[in-house]
């Protein structure tokens, strides 16, 4: 496992942390994500398991993560990067991992992140006629939204 970690460390601008056996975190800056993913694929991480976003609202950042898998080494590598919450834009990775295309559609809809190079980014995917804040953002209050849009049925019980 350590030789693969060394190989990853060879990629420019990455910070590698080994979480436990078969789990590696690879942190890169925003501008180096695509080149890192490309290099990761060359190393042998052929599969993108999941790509998604964490809303780090306290740091005013979106954390984008790509869970990669290599069958050869049986290792999951998680590439992470952080982008600004204001006017968030990422570059598409679908030329490297075709399955990223759909994940990016979901990300752009659920977090309002624009994906450069992905023609489906911004088109409605799961939601229909959504006019509110992107719903997976932490500042979107789902309880408030429900109470404004739906009628609640209350049984008579007394909540002291």
């Amino acid at each position: 496992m350590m030789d693969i970690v060394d190989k990853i460390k060879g990629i420019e601008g990455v910070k590698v942390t080994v979480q436990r056996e078969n789990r590696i975190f690879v942190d890169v800056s925003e501008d180096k994500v695509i080149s890192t993913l490309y290099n990761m694929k060359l190393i042998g991480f052929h599969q993108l398991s999941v790509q998604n976003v964490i809303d780090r609202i306290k740091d005013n950042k979106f954390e984008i993560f790509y869970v990669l898998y290599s069958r050869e080494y049986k290792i999951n590598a998680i590439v992470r990067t952080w982008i600004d919450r204001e006017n968030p834009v990422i570059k598409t990775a679908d030329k490297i991992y075709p399955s990223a295309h759909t994940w990016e559609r979901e990300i752009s809809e659920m977090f309002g992140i624009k994906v450069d190079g992905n023609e489906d980014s911004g088109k409605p995917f799961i939601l229909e006629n959504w006019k509110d804040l992107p719903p997976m953002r932490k500042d979107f209050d789902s309880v408030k939204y429900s109470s404004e849009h739906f009628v609640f049925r209350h049984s008579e019980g007394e909540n002291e």
Partner: protein
Amino acid sequence: MNIKEYEKGSFLKPLTSVKYLFKKPHTLRYPKETKPVADRFRGLHINDVDKCIGCGNCRDICPCAAITMEKASKIGRPIEIDKKGANPVRPKIDYGRCSFCALCVEMCPTGSLKMSKDLIYTSPDAEAFAWVPLEEQGREPGFIQDNEITPLMLEAQEMEELEPEVRKRSFEEMILGFSEEQARKEAMRCLGCGICMQGCPAHMKIPEYIQAIFDGDHKKSVKYMLEDNVLPGICGRICTHRCQDDCVYQYRGAPIHIMWLKRYATDQLEDYKDVNIEKMPATGKKVAIIGGGPSGLSAAYHLSTMGHSVTIFEQKNRAGGALATGIPLYRLPIYELDKEIGNIESMGVEIKTNVKVGEDVKFEDLLKEFDAVYIGIGLSYGRSINLKGEEHPDVVQAIDFLRQVKVEGRRDITKHVIVIGGGNVAMDVARTVARLQEINYQSKDTTVETVSLEDWDIMPASQEEIDGALEEGVIFNPAWGPNQVIFNEDGSIKGLEVKKVKYVFDENHRFNPAFYEDQKKIIYGDYIIESVGQMYNFSFIPKELMEQLKFTPRRKVWVDEYGETSIPGVFAGGDIVETSKGDAISAIANGHRAAIGIDRFLHGKSRRG
């Protein structure tokens, strides 16, 4: 698997299924035939509403918000509503929301809530799918609690204490207190239901301060405590912890050590400077407090936060009342008293020690000089039982003995001591004697025996005190009543003659002991300590005022709901009023209540104005 065989394919093989034409079908002829339901089936709920305490933990854990708490009057059958440690509400479940996950069942601390094997209910009315589950709905139990696997943390953290052999050698504090890890783990157990708050005479905000301990915020925790209890560190050591008797964990496991958590949090703070209640602007009103015991201190603290200037008159050389003179050092060390009484003084309360009201200052002068007077003198005199021979100098009162040991530094004791009484004070006396005997004689050829009217099952002392005393070698004589003191020829005490108790309480549940006069024995000993109760002394109040003072049938001072006596402007609290249960926390609670009453009185809102 031979894949070739499948790749070939066959026309005829599918025809073999024709054989099923002649086989029994797998389906059931419902409703004539039904399938047995699994034993652990998670169906509609069953709730034993008599066992249920309405704690609301089921509601708190429900992932679907399907549970609301219904008022007792609406549940469809009468229930005992003033049950101790219970809320008069019961869960109502909305089956339009319920996901049948059974987390409510897992979290039910009493075990009253179960799930049944029944899942069939139909109605054209959507509202009809929400009801209060009852046992008499006749459903058969399915999924129930398991004490082995339960999300509740049923086991309490062990409290470390000094071994009996070690602790007997000195008056060192015997309970060692929680470590940070233990306290966090113990605090983690709390479900936050707040049933315990009803048991606490001061209604402390227990769930909140335990949550703060869990979060590691000791200052916030003590801040919550001080709002209702000005002596949290002392109560964390010596409280009768009625809260723990109500803790919902008692039904399936061990109650949370609420008292020791309180002690842990206060021990983490050197002083309460940053956490005291904020003081209001000075009003210029003056209040005199007679007696520096817990109720007086409590009233003084709260009155001073309300902006009044407060003076405490204490006849002994230090404030604290029974806390300072009665409770042995191994339970309550002096530094804790100094810390908490010091904190009250830091709020601007003036404590005048060695001042006896009635002798050094006149009660009527206090009434004139101060805008209000609070009496919190407590029961500071021992009560004798008119025992034949008790005028002998080696027959002493518990309260005097404890004071001598704690305050005056008495360390001598005889080899064979008899303690009369079965309450917590008797335990304090017996355990103090055990320590003195160990110090003086290394417990060689010594005895300390207690005599109590009550048998083991009704002994008033708390179980932990009894266990502690037993561990330290105290011999108990339960269900024996003292008859007379037996003397040697030289006039020294030989022992105590006791007779067997027939019953303590008569058929009307009144204290009215009866004895078997023919069953007698002698307990040998050369020193007798009487510990059968205390009484008050109102001799400082002039006769004409005394006549105005109203008493209850039980000879306690009558007070209204704000602690005001029948004399306007004179308030009372602590052990001398009937609402007190004879412990520090009730005294603190009615001291607080009287402070609110005095504040109202000083602002002209008194009932009798």
